[in-house]
């Protein structure tokens, strides 16, 4: 599981060493490696806990051996992150390797094949992301306005996360077969019976190949668990911090596509009170774009310019000109705060008469939607100011670090069959005195029905 690179690797590969010359989005630094990756015939069994956001896909991967051998806490803290934006390309459109760089980040070029006959969504794709995506123009794949369980881009992100994380995790001994025990965080409105059935049907088994590294992995999804994003987040916060959970906690996690709210009553979820709000980072960018065009004229700004503006407070026009748009951003953010509060009131309190707003003890927010930017202003501030009128007794907390994978792990590990021969508590106890399994796991891994087809496709992909 060594992530550091050897000093002579780039010389061996004969390419420019671009490590430390790039700026990475927080969390994506593990992709800044040019270590060699190699396949090894064999099967591994891993648990994964994934938060598939619209900007980044992040998660934890733990092998059954790690869970047994006292490394649980160490692995629990280690998050793997890939960018969630990609391009779909033809295999003829780009060279199989980036000629300028041998970093993994610059060689994220993967093919996915699924032979699952029950699948309702086609995510059999050739995708590039990271530095390689800079080599092509055109529309980016991005988790859109659809439900995540119905969005091919969301599946593509999960699959690529599994692939690249397996490469980073196993390094020069990447198993050819990996059985996956999976927990995923979804927006609240994706957790209906119908949507979950769609998700289960589509996430079954597939073959994934990293083209530049010629690494092919067959993934078999053994089991899937799910939680809402705000639930995983706020429960992780209270479990990790060790604080007592106040009587009524109202937590909102703001993402790119939407935001979700979770109501904890005496520390326990209130499943009837889990609204999704169609308010996210994308809507904020759209509002800023409209305001910018209204103020400065011209054509709408491209998304990258808008994202830069939200981060820095400026719209750069060429090398010498830049417009200060902090005022426009603040107005747009204030508007989103107002819409969010109104949606919470309407979807949660007006239709959930058991609790009233003035009973709320803590109002917390998390997620990229609430990030401050270099100009130091967050939606959280206006949200708090407005909410104080309706929830005068509440304490307001802005939680900034991403905890969804950790929350998923804590809430699902004990129910997973990753460790079929030992309870989660026994494994946790081995953190102090390492547990040595006396026998192989009793439960056999069931071969997927389409294993033969998968095998054939794997061979085909190896030949490409």
């Amino acid at each position, binding site marked *: 599981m060594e992530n550091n690179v050897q000093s002579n690797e780039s010389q061996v590969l004969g390419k420019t060493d671009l490590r430390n010359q790039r700026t990475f989005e927080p969390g994506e630094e593990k992709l800044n490696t040019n270590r060699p990756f190699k396949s090894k015939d064999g099967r591994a069994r891993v648990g994964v806990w994934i938060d598939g956001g619209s900007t980044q896909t992040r998660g934890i991967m733990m092998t059954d051996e790690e869970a047994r051998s006292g490394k649980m806490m160490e692995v629990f803290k280690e998050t793997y992150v890939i960018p969630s934006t990609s391009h779909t390309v033809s295999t003829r459109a780009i060279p199989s390797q980036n000629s300028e760089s041998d970093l993994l980040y610059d060689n994220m070029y993967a093919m996915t094949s699924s032979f699952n006959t029950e699948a309702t969504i086609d995510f059999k794709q050739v995708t590039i992301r990271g530095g390689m995506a800079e080599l092509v123009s055109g529309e980016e794949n991005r988790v859109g306005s659809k439900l995540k369980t119905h969005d091919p881009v969301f599946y593509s992100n999960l699959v690529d996360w599994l692939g690249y994380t397996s490469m980073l995790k196993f390094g020069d001994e990447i198993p050819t077969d990996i059985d996956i025990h999976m927990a995923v965080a979804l927006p609240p409105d994706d957790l209906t019976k119908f949507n979950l059935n769609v998700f289960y049907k589509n996430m079954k088994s597939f073959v994934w190949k990293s083209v530049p590294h010629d690494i092919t992995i067959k993934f078999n999804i053994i089991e899937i668990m799910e939680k809402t994003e705000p639930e995983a987040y706020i429960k992780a916060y209270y479990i990790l911090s060790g604080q007592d959970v106040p009587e009524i906690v109202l937590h909102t996690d703001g993402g790119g596509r939407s935001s979700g709210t979770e109501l904890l009553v005496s*520390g326990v979820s209130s499943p009837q009170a889990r609204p999704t709000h169609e308010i996210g980072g994308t809507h904020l960018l759209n509002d800023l774009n409209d305001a910018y065009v209204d103020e400065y004229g011209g054509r709408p700004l491209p998304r990258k310019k808008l994202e830069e503006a939200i981060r820095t407070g400026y719209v750069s026009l060429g090398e010498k000109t830049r417009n200060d748009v902090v005022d426009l951003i603040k107005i747009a953010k204030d508007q989103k705060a107002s819409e969010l509060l109104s949606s919470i009131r309407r979807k949660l309190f007006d239709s959930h008469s058991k609790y009233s707003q003035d009973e709320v003890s803590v109002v917390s927010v998390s997620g990229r939607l609430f990030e401050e930017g270099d100009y130091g202003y967050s939606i959280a501030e206006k949200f708090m*100011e407005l909410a104080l009128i309706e929830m005068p007794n509440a304490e307001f907390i802005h939680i900034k670090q991403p905890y969804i994978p950790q929350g998923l792990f804590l809430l699902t590990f004990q129910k997973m069959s990753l460790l079929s021969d030992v309870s989660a508590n026994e494994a946790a106890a081995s953190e102090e005195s390492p547990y040595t399994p006396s026998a192989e796991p009793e439960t056999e891994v069931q071969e997927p029905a389409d294993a033969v087809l998968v095998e054939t496709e794997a061979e085909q992909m190896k030949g490409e």
Partner: protein
Amino acid sequence: MRIEFPKGFLTLRTKKAEDLVEHHLTEGTFWDFVAILVEEKAEDKVEVQLAEMQNIIKMIQSQIASGNLGGATVSNNTSLPSPNVFGDDASKSTVKPRVADLDLNLLGDMKQMFARAKKMEGE
């Protein structure tokens, strides 16, 4: 001098801020208004965010500059104040939400965390 705001001038502002402006801008100069705000803010007599106050100043400046501030007059030798008169950083507001950061290196024992998770799952 009496300063009156056009209808809808403060539609994006909170009621609290609107009342504040209504209260103080009935007479006096622009500088009087700013001075009163600074003084009352310093004495904690007003409960309004710095960012909010800065925005009010900016809006008033804009209205004066465009000549749309009904009835308002500003003498030639009166320079407009900087919006930063209340502080140069909106983030210094005293009514921000508490920021919570956890250090994953200071976590308790995994078994305890599993027990807490079970409790939160209602088990």
